[in-house]
């Protein structure tokens, strides 16, 4: 039974798409929140980050599209690569990075605009305003987010008039509008009721055909249900990373075992 992440990771039998490597460390000011991370994420699969609050899973997720840059006084060591390109490459525009990586947030946050405008936002800011293109993207994204049939007749109504689950799926549709390579999901269902949660999970399952998905969740059952691979974090350290079945049915680490079986703390 191995304690070090390297060994657990060594089981990787795939071509990594996102790599967190070189002992990635991360600090908020003087507080270190991530310790010596090394993690390979496969393409077009769902990878779940689980762990108790404050374990660093969200921080790691937000590191992938450098959303943490918004916070003052952060710094890191190590590297993260996407398709072998470092996200910290100085020649890389962070905006461009974020265009490659869609993100869905804990609280659904549609813009106070119409459904249509929400989806085409990423195109409009890139200066793509051709009506036919936008229409196509809206339909594709809404279909992709399994929302098309529900809202196709009210595309120009305010997004805020939708139900919570619809809003979150709209956010997903917005995230895939630009056809990103990766979708990051930060507890996407924590503000939703079970039915909406089910729909979103279903959607995740659909989306993984086209996108590499990384999801942070508090809900272990959710991780078990939706993910192909699961990483368990504790106190800023990666404790175990394996295919989801192994993590939940025969974890090799006692802490993982304790956590997934609810005997934690």
């Amino acid at each position, binding site marked *: 039974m191995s304690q070090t992440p390297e060994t657990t990771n060594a089981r990787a039998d795939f071509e990594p798409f996102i790599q967190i490597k070189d002992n990635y460390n991360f600090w908020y000011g003087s507080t270190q929140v991530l310790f010596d991370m090394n993690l390979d994420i496969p393409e077009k699969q769902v990878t779940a980050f689980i762990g108790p609050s404050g374990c660093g899973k969200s921080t790691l997720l937000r590191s992938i599209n450098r959303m943490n840059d*918004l916070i003052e006084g952060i710094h890191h060591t190590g590297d993260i690569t996407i398709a072998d390109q470092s996200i910290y490459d100085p020649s890389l525009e962070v*905006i*461009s990075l974020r*265009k490659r990586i869609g993100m869905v*947030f804990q609280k659904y946050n549609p813009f106070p605009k119409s459904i249509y405008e929400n989806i085409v*936002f990423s195109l409009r*800011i890139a200066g793509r305003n051709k009506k036919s293109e936008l229409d196509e993207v809206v339909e594709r994204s809404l279909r992709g987010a399994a929302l098309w049939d529900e809202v196709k007749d009210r595309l120009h109504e305010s997004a805020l008039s939708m139900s*919570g689950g619809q809003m979150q799926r709209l956010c997903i549709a917005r*995230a895939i509008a630009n056809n990103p390579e990766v979708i990051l999901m930060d507890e996407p269902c924590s*503000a939703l009721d079970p039915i909406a949660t089910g729909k979103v999970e279903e959607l995740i399952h659909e989306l993984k055909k086209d996108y590499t998905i990384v999801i942070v969740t508090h809900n272990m059952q959710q991780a078990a249900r939706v993910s192909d691979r699961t990483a368990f974090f504790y106190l800023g350290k990666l404790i175990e990373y394996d295919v989801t079945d192994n993590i939940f049915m025969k974890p090799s680490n006692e802490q993982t075992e304790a956590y997934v079986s609810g005997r934690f703390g």
Partner: protein
Amino acid sequence: MPKSQHSFTSIRPKGEALVWFTGMGLSVGILLIIGLLGIILKNGLSMFWPDTIYEVQLVEGSTAGPRNGQNFAGAIALERHKRLQEATNAGLTSEFQFFAGNKDAYGQMYHYVDADQIVTDATGEPLFTPASGILQLERIEFGDALGFPLEIQLADGTTITEPEALKAALFKTIEESNERLETYTKIEKKQIGRINSKMESIRLEQRALREELGEAAAETSPQIQELNEQQAALQAQYTELAAEARELRERRHQDSLLLRLATGEERRISFENITQAHFPNEMSLPGKVGFFLKQIWRFMSEAPREANTEGGIFPAIFGTFVMTLLMSLAVMPFGVVAAIYLREYATQGVIVRAVRISVNNLAGVPSIVYGVFGLGFFVYVLGGSIDELFFSHKLPTATFGTGGVLWASLTLALMTVPVVIVATEEALSAVPRGMREAALACGASKWQAIQRIVLPASAPGILTGLILAMARGAGEVAPLMLVGVVKLAPSLPLDGEFPFVHLDRKFMHLGFHIYDLAFQSPDSDAAKPMVFATTLLLIVLVIVLNLSAITIRNHLRKKYKGDTF
């Protein structure tokens, strides 16, 4: 006590009296507002209502009326209690203030008469009979005239005395006279004004040339001669126009109306002096309402006369408008930019917190302090420098080195910038963090996120702040007194003359107009209705601005309330 153990109802809640006592605070507050607004509303509107003119008969030997006479006609302006002069009868009596007009004849328009000086009717009440057929004339000089029309004498020699024809001729002549006035004003103000400004620029050119070439050389230079020719041509044009205007003037002057005053004497009034006439006691209610509305319109659209005690307040409205507009133009971008900086760009820490508190507090710094700064910095330092750099040919007459609408606007902008910053910051912070993150995650740049998501979402809040700033700016007087407001501005800050916007001009302002009318007016009784009317207008303006701000804010609260951001 034993009883109360059995019954719930007999337990009296403690402190109910004190609850009622606190209710008194609210009641007094409400009464104060209603009372104050009511007084302004009543007094402000009554100026426009055609009052009934009464014939007043004074008791034998009384000298309280105009010209010490015993009868006169006037409207009751005020009835109030007065400390009784006789010691035997402790208490108060009534005193009437009459508006008798005819300042040219009586010396003053308002007269105070004690109730016991007036002839009473059978019940002991003072006897007032409406003066039938009395005419009220609004005049350019000497205020209103009250009297019975006797005859109209026109310039062509015709005289009209028959009452009905007289009435018709009266209104017709006034109309014609006003048309003539309009024509020659146009000639004098516009055409002659244009010639004058051309001549002035020629004169300046001449001066510049003389300085450049030297006095002697200049006289023979072709440029000067050409200028001289132009000058002569303009002079000729001027003479022609002036003659035309004079003729119209003359005609207006010659038409006249003979009026018999209630005190008995007769007076001839030239039509050039009459702006409007009405028969107050003959008017029907719809007629009175119509007159009332017309008077309100005239009040708002005309320029003041007679040391601001007559006429309208259009220049003050316009000045307030232009000043507030300029102020908004200045305050809006800067306030919003500063707020965006504080909220979106600055590193949130102790310093920004301190800056925020300071900005908040600046909103509470007395307005006069901003006025002091405006005078010291804008007018003297900035304006003085501008004058030296660009207008040195006009010195020592200051152009920007004295108060003007630009400096006033900037001063008020500075004063209200904290209001806008605070409101904008509040509006920005009300936009959920998730919105910004979502925009950024969509690949928007920081500015795109602000421009496309944050600013539109906070626009109503920013607008609220701006409206509040405008309301404060429109109602503020103290700093303006230092930086360019005047009681009577010769010309508007915006007009048809190049360069159309005259930022250096002094301007009139509703608030200062009130101050000026109330305190600097030579005839305070005559000014009082004007002050109240102006006050009413200012208050309506400020309240409308505030109400719209409150409405927008409530709307905003409703929008953000209940949703789950």
